[in-house]
Structure formats: structure tokens, C-alpha cells
């Protein structure tokens, strides 16, 4: 079985967010780019599954939609262990456009498991994985916090309100993963980084696809009032403020 991991190239989570002067685009000056945290966990789990040879995972492929500037992030994924990478050469217009590109890649290979992160840390859309599954007309499972294989059979743990469910769906399917899928994201070792340079990174042209939404404008939240400080030996005052001023008790 082959596994495809969809990778979104996102600003480092500590980035101070800035926009262009007219607030219509994200200002990426000085930004460090990373593999979207959930995608990184998905990739880590894919590598673990492949390493246990009894699972019969033959290849782990990573794919990202974006201009040439996303290639360092794909190389990072190769350094972590992916066997090959595909970049769809297009600007990630909206989630639907991205999902359509991924569907074209996913549909052209015999991938049994297709993994996406539950959201990207920039647009927080929680959309691409589900859209991809609907375009491919295959099952999807979301909020996945565990995935094990036994030969071709995949068992999935998904989070539900107040608990967990163990489910299975027939392959091929799209798995939308979150925290728990892997313990810690795997970090590329020196050897991996050296090897990544020689691994295949294929560039494919974008297919025609519709965008259904457009982010027109950005705004920063209103600056908030400064924190009211209360002395540590006057807890009573805090309780009074919460009761009478904030009215939250």
C-alpha cells in the first residue's frame, strides 16, 4: 500500500502576523516557513507505519500545492523520511482549489491512505481533507488521533465529544488527523537531510479548478484594555471584580 501525505507550507507558529499596506494580503517578509504542525504529525505517523514492515507500506509520498517557494518545506518532509515529493505548480487560491489539485494527484496514484491535517495554522479552514475526499468520492474520517494497520486493514481512532471511537473504513480513504496521531513530530537527522537532496521532487502543472471563496481583506483584533492587576494578598478584591465588574461569577 502507498500513503500520500498532503503538506501545507505555513508560517512558523510564533510569527508576528503582518499584512500589506492595504490589508489585502499577508506580508511574508522575514517569515520562517514550516510544515503545518498537523501535517508533520501525519507524516511522522506515515513513516512509523512504513517502518513496521509487516504493514506492507511500500512508499510514502508527500504533496503540496504552491509555487517553487514551497520546495524547501517539501525537502524537509523528504528529510524526515518521505520517499518522494510532488509539487503542484499553482497558487493555493482557496481550499477548494487546493483540494482539486490534490485530488488530481491522489487520483493518479494507487494510494490506499491519504492523510491531511485537521486544519492549516494560517487560514484555519479545516476544509481541504474533507473536500478532497468528496471530489475523489471516497470515505473520509476526521479528528483522527490514532491509526494502526494490520496488513491492508486499517483501524482508526477518532475523537468524538467526550470520548473516542474506534472505526474502520475501506481503502482508499482520506484521513484527517489531529494531535495524538503521533507522539512528537519527527525531526530530520543529518543523514536524512543529505539523502533528501537526492530524492525525487516532481513538479506537475495545476489542473483547472474553481475557487469558491476569496479572502478579501485582513484586520488585526482591537487592542485590548490593559490587564487589571490585583495584589496577591487581596484575592477578595479579585473575586469582587469578577462578580461585579466582569460579571462572570
Amino acid at each position, binding site marked *: 500500500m502507498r500513503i500520500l501525505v498532503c503538506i501545507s507550507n505555513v508560517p512558523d507558529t510564533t510569527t508576528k*502576523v503582518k499584512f500589506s499596506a492595504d490589508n489585502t494580503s499577508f506580508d511574508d517578509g522575514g517569515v520562517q516557513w514550516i510544515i503545518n*504542525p498537523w501535517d508533520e504529525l501525519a507524516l511522522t505517523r506515515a513513516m512509523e507505519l512504513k517502518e513496521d514492515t509487516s504493514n506492507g507500506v511500500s512508499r510514502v509520498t508527500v504533496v503540496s500545492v504552491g509555487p517553487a517557494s514551497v520546495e524547501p518545506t517539501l525537502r524537509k518532509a523528504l528529510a524526515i523520511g518521505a520517499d518522494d515529493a510532488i509539487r503542484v505548480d499553482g497558487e493555493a487560491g482557496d481550499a*477548494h482549489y487546493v483540494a482539486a489539485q490534490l485530488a488530481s494527484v491522489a487520483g493518479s496514484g494507487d494510494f490506499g491512505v491519504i492523510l491531511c491535517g485537521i486544519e492549516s495554522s494560517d487560514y484555519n479552514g479545516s476544509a481541504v481533507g*474533507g473536500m478532497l475526499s468528496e471530489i475523489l468520492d471516497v*470515505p473520509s474520517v476526521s479528528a483522527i488521533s490514532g491509526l494502526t494497520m494490520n496488513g491492508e486493514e486499517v483501524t482508526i481512532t477518532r475523537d468524538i465529544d467526550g470520548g473516542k471511537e*474506534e472505526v474502520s473504513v475501506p481503502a482508499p480513504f482520506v484521513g484527517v488527523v489531529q*494531535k495524538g496521531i503521533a507522539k512528537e513530530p519527527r525531526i530530520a537527522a543529518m543523514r536524512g537531510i543529505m539523502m533528501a537532496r537526492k530524492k525525487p521532487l516532481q513538479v506537475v502543472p495545476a489542473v483547472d479548478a474553481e475557487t469558491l471563496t476569496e*479572502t478579501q481583506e485582513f484586520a488585526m483584533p482591537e487592542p485590548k484594555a490593559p490587564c487589571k492587576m*490585583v495584589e496577591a494578598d487581596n*484575592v477578595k478584591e479579585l473575586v469582587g471584580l469578577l462578580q461585579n465588574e466582569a460579571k462572570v461569577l
Partner: protein
Amino acid sequence: MSVLVYNENWDGKFKKLSYELVSYAKAVAGMTGGTVTALSIGNVDQDELSSLGAYGANSVLSVAGVSEGLDNQLYTQIIAAAMEKSGAKVLVLANNNTGKAIAPRLSVKLKAGLASGVTAVPESVDPLVVSKKVFSGKAYGKVKVLSGSAILTLAQNSYEINETGGSAAVEAFEPGVDASSALTTIKDVQKQEGKLLLTDADVVISGGRGMKSGDNWAPIEELAAVLEGATACSRPVSDEGWRPHEEHTGQTGKIIAPNLYMAFGISGAIQHLAGVNSSKCIVAVNTDKDAPIFESADYGIVGDALKVLPELISEIKAAKAQ
């Protein structure tokens, strides 16, 4: 513009989130004088269904006899059929696990642009333009939907419930899909019964690494119990195994928006704030006066959480007793 709102049930019951969703759908429909149809899937009794009318649903479509174990494809088909039946142009769902699982599928099936995690009614409906948080709450983005119909998923605890009274007519709806076609096999369910969910709680008491050890959690739990709230923690705390993973809040954990969030011994890292910055009131207790949490907090105490907690518990008990 008419609105369809999908209302999930929990063991046959609705909850605060359901009424929030209907109130929101009502406000969206009200912008153009449209109607609200609520959709329920699974076994929910008539009284419970018609109670949605009190929050603005004009009618309720009820699809019984479908397993509550979520099959994304089956639910997508049912909701799409209800969209057609109701003639709605806007579909509203919760931005919770279920909503996140099916809204994007519906977006493709209905060719309807998806704006997820919205916190307010649209600025305009034609074209539909709505604001949502982006960059994990660090900014807002104005999303314009380019398609004829739209899907909005509402962030939990972000919209005021508006009870207008009345009840809605309930219609049994036959979506014409084969429930036995579901491909998801549910092998096992583990659920904690009767526990207040972190995402539902109005009050959340949270501890970070500054609590020093998992053995120090008793006062956090006690304070949560006194305020009928839930407990939460920062990521390192759950990574250390001091607290269960379900309590981890932040960018990579749960995203919550309670009325009151109290952070004890939490530094306020940007990734932690991403999960709690929609809280209406944030209280922080930290030994370090320069801890970044104070920049996001409304009220703060520079002090030892382990000393402040017992005092706070007794003061709150005293205030409540009055």
C-alpha cells in the same frame, strides 16, 4: 435568503450549542427576511425537536432511523437532500468535530463556498461576506463567498442565544438515501458519561507547568467544581502526563471560548493563547510579572498559584454563600 441549520443531537438531546446555532441561523435569515429550517438526523423526540422553534426555527426536518455513528458520506448526502428540499441558500453547522468532518464534503457536493469558524453574522448577504479568525486568532479575515450558496460553520460559544419563544412544526423527512450504504464501521465507543465537556463549559480552570506537578491539581479541580466549570491545561502538562490529553488547550489542542478562563502557572505562549483567546474574561496567576499571559488577561495576580488557589476557593465560596 433561507437558511438550513444542521442540529446534531447527543443521545437524543440538544444542548446550548444547538440553540446557539439556531439563533445564529435566525439572525442570518433575518438579514433578508428568509426562513430557518432546522435539520435533525437520528432519533430525537417530538418535544425536543419542536423546542428549536423557540430559538427561531420555522420548521424542523427530522430524519429518523439513521445511526448516530457518523458516516461522513451518508450525512453529506442527507444534508444535501435537505438543502434541496428546503430551498435554502445558506447552510449553518457547528465548527466542531462533526461540522469539520462534513462541511467540506458538502461544500464540494453543493458547490457552496465554505467559511469555517465564523463568529458573527455576515456583513452582507449578496455577495455573502463574513469575517472569521485566521492565523489562530491573531487576525481576522473577510471571506467573500463566490458561489450562489454558502456554508458557514459557527465557532462554539461565539453567538448569543436568543430565545424568542414558540415552537416549530416538525416534519419527518425521507432523504431518499440508503442508510445501509454507510462505509464507516464503528467497532468501539468509549465515552465519559455525565462529564461536562471542556468545549461546552462556561468556566474553565486551567493549569500550566507552573503548577509544578500533577499531584498539585486538587485545588484546580475544586475551583472548577465550585464554579461548575471544567478543567484544562497547557500542552507540556498533558505531554508530561500530569493531565489527560483531552484537557490540552491551544493551537494543537482544544479551542475554547468560555465566559471565564483562569490560567494558573501558564506563561501564555502564542500557541496556548490560540486556543483560549476568544474567552470573554481571562484571569491569570503567575509568579513572573513579565509573563506574556498578562498581555492577554483581563485580570491578573503576580503570585504563587499554589498559594492563591486555596484563598480564591474560599473567597469564591464565601461570595457565593451570600
